[in-house]
């Protein structure tokens, strides 16, 4: 769920381009240190600031069985100290120097970043390199931070019926693949995690040869290279295990997940299909599916919005989403929210009718051209923010793509044909490989309305 929300946001910013003028997207400079650390630099000189990020090729889908949430807990614990930087000091030092720092975890990657004045790059690089190899954890700090994560889970998931439904839909969508586990972890397993679990995970995965350094902003590649050699260069590489993820069997049975919850005030409906990603054997479909998502749910003139929200007036909202950045398979989703008084089965029937129209009569050449043109402009907008460049490149490199793939995005979208979009729609929109999620209020007899005292 984190990953998907996050990735869809990126997609909205980046939907990369076509067109002869946009031969490149971010024009990064890359090189690799002797210890295997890959370094990517994107120049942007508008303001004297820099975004410094380290991405690790490890995420929640690499966790051992029974240890869900350890990737994310370790991310929190990375702020809990080394012999050089005491527990809790990392963020304070960054702040004292006028910077902001944060970190995030997905199924496929874990990343740490600082946004700071360009002349403080050396400082944050020194501290980030230090905690790549020298983390020391104190049992008491681990226990306290585990409580923080359990509160985070309550805030994000347990307090929110729609987030709970998303979590259970994911768990049903992947029959065997670890994407079925929530990134934040199941509460009972998180509560049992300990210091040794975190250190085991850290020692196994956190090494320069399993990381990517991305620096974007008011810097020169030579200067970043020299600093990276100085601080990351001396770090010893490790033998990092292969990322073994359980394979997903062929999906032959449609599933339905219904959450009835007394807290629900606004019902909703969605369906998620297993889909190819950039790393799938049929990865050409990944580009066609981005065009398809734009046509089905990309805005106020998209097929689903126009039919359900504008013309039939039975939905308050309708959308489609697809994020192809995944180390293994991806998913394609559609969703709708009924207007007051519209029964869920009527809404569902109308959505399914639109899906049947897409896979039956198909998508027209004109629709494909329009969608490609719309996607095109967004590359220019993506270049506007240095944080966007750093995030897109880091995500790509931790999910099996190359810098060249990112830079070729405009051309590959431009090459998508109407035939390819129709073939992808027919291949992916197969109910047997899907989960339908429905959020409903609990029947009135047991529902408790909020009471003000």
């Amino acid at each position, binding site marked *: 769920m984190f990953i998907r929300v996050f990735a869809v946001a990126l997609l909205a910013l980046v939907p990369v381009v076509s067109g002869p003028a946009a031969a490149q997207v971010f024009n990064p400079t890359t090189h690799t240190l002797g210890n295997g650390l890959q370094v990517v630099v994107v120049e942007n000189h*508008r*303001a004297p*600031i820099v975004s410094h990020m380290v991405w690790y090729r490890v995420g929640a889908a690499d966790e051992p069985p029974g240890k869900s949430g350890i990737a994310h807990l370790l991310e*929190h614990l990375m702020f809990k100290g080394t012999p050089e930087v005491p527990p*809790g000091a990392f*963020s*304070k030092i960054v*702040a*004292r*120097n*006028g*910077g*902001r720092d*944060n*970190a*995030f*975890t997905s199924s496929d990657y874990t990343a740490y970043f600082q946004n*700071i*004045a360009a002349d*403080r790059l050396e400082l944050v690089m020194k501290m980030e390199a230090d905690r790549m190899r020298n983390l020391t954890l104190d049992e008491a700090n681990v*226990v*306290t*931070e585990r*409580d*923080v994560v359990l*509160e985070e889970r*309550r*805030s994000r998931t*347990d*307090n*929110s*019926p729609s987030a709970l439904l998303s979590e259970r839909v994911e768990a049903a969508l992947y029959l065997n693949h670890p994407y079925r586990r929530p990134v934040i972890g199941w509460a009972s397993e998180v509560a049992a995690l300990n210091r040794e679990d975190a250190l085991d995970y850290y020692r196994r995965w956190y090494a320069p040869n399993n990381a990517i350094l991305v620096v974007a902003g008011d810097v020169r590649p030579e200067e970043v290279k020299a600093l990276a050699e100085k601080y990351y260069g001396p770090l010893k590489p490790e033998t990092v295990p292969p990322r073994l993820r359980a394979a997903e069997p062929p999906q032959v049975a449609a599933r339905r997940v219904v959450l009835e919850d*007394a*807290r*629900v*005030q*606004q019902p909703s409906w969605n369906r998620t299909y297993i889909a190819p990603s950039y790393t799938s054997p049929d990865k050409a479909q990944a580009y066609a599916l981005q065009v398809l998502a734009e046509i089905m749910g*990309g805005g*106020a003139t998209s097929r689903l919005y*126009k039919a359900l*929200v504008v013309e039939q*007036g039975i939905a*308050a909202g309708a959308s489609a989403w697809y994020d192809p950045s995944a180390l293994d398979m991806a998913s394609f989703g559609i969703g709708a929210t009924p*207007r*007051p008084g519209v029964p869920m089965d009527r809404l569902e029937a109308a959505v399914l009718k639109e899906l049947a129209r897409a896979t039956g009569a198909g998508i027209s050449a004109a629709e494909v051209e*329009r969608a490609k*043109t*719309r996607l095109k*402009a967004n590359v*220019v*907008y993506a*270049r*506007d*923010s*240095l*944080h966007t460049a750093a995030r897109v490149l880091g995500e790509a490199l931790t999910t099996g793509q190359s810098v060249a793939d990112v830079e070729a995005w405009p051309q590959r979208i431009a090459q998508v044909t109407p035939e390819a979009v129709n073939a992808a729609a027919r291949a992916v929109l197969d109910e047997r490989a899907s989960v339908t999620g429905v959020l409903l209020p609990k029947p009135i007899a047991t529902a*408790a309305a*909020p009471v*003000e*005292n």
Partner: protein
Amino acid sequence: MRRILVLLALLAAWPLSAGAVTVERVVSPKGIEAWLVQDHANPIVALSVAFRGGAAVEARPGLANMVSGLLDEGAGPYDSQAFQGRLEDLAIDLGFEAGRDEFRGRLKTLSENRDAAFELFRLALTQARFDKEPVERIRSQILAGLARELQSPEAVAARAWFRQAFAGHPYASAVRGEPETVKAVTTAELKAYARTWLARDGMVIGVVGDITPEQLKPLLDSTFAALPARHPGITVPETAPKAPGATMVVTKDNPQSVAMFGEAGPKRDDPDWYAAYVMNYILGGGGFSSRLTEQVREKRGLAYSVYSYLSPYDRAGLIVGGVATQNARIAESLDLIRAEWRRMGEEGPSETELADAKTYLTGSFPLQLDSTAAIAGLLVAMQLDDLGIDYLDKRNGYIEAVTLADVRRVAKRLLDPARLSVVVVGKPEGLAATR
């Protein structure tokens, strides 16, 4: 993601700060003024505009918000689908948003579509159609959004807090209104709001990107000159939060209680604004460096997010904050927050805390200059708050000038845990509701 909530709180608290950019005042032949930052590195132009008034002057709660959802749903010769289709085909980002004191518009376009983008913006501002289909559609979307808000304990807490603190004043109403008020909004009211409050005398404009003053001037005239010269005047009275010290519980069957707390704070034109701003950073604005985070999260693991921020409105100032803790221990979190509130009020910060706050607040200043749209928003805020066109150059000096005595004085004046009014949403244990 780790600290998104904290970061958002931080952003909300930030006054505008500066950077290495030059702000120019541009005045069109017909007298329309805009503040401009030229940046020709990327072929993008961003415009931000605000009209004073906002939800505080609306005839019915939720009206201004509904107008904001409808200006781009059909205007001039274009019906809703045609207007949205133009925006999508030209990759123009155009939208509106109602706040308590302002009604805001934004426009972002590629340079090659600049003229068409400004033309669509003009149509939205001056010739919105309010056709029946989009009016009912947007109404249904707002109602769905209000229903979703009732599922969010943070939104429920904020609504209850404002309802209690500002009873009888326009600030008591949520900007998005209530289901019954949204259902009652008429097309005549929508048209009247747009015609009355989108007026030139309450308007400020910021423009950033690939455009020169000479290119901008005729676009200012063609886009804004047809708006009425004057609005009727804003008569919203000054106010201050009521029910100090009250604790209200809104029962919700959640595993975690979400609390909002706050009391009167400085308005933006308060002579002690910068001292208060530095003080809040140390108390609860500074993410991982704040006292609240140290006590509640770092030492005890009681919350993922705990924060405070200054929230200055035109007619009232607030210092407010939030925390979320499992039901069994929310009372402990609130006790810790009250203790920190008291300690800061009585003792103020240390020299080290003050120095660290200053280096953060001044050093992080340019981080806000990340995108053209962000800078355009800054230019508008500078004008709304009357900060001066040289504010970006002067702002860090204001922070540097704050002394320990200033912060102690303002902390003593502002912070009193006995005045904190608290709303808790959840099933809190060990907490006595006073209302």
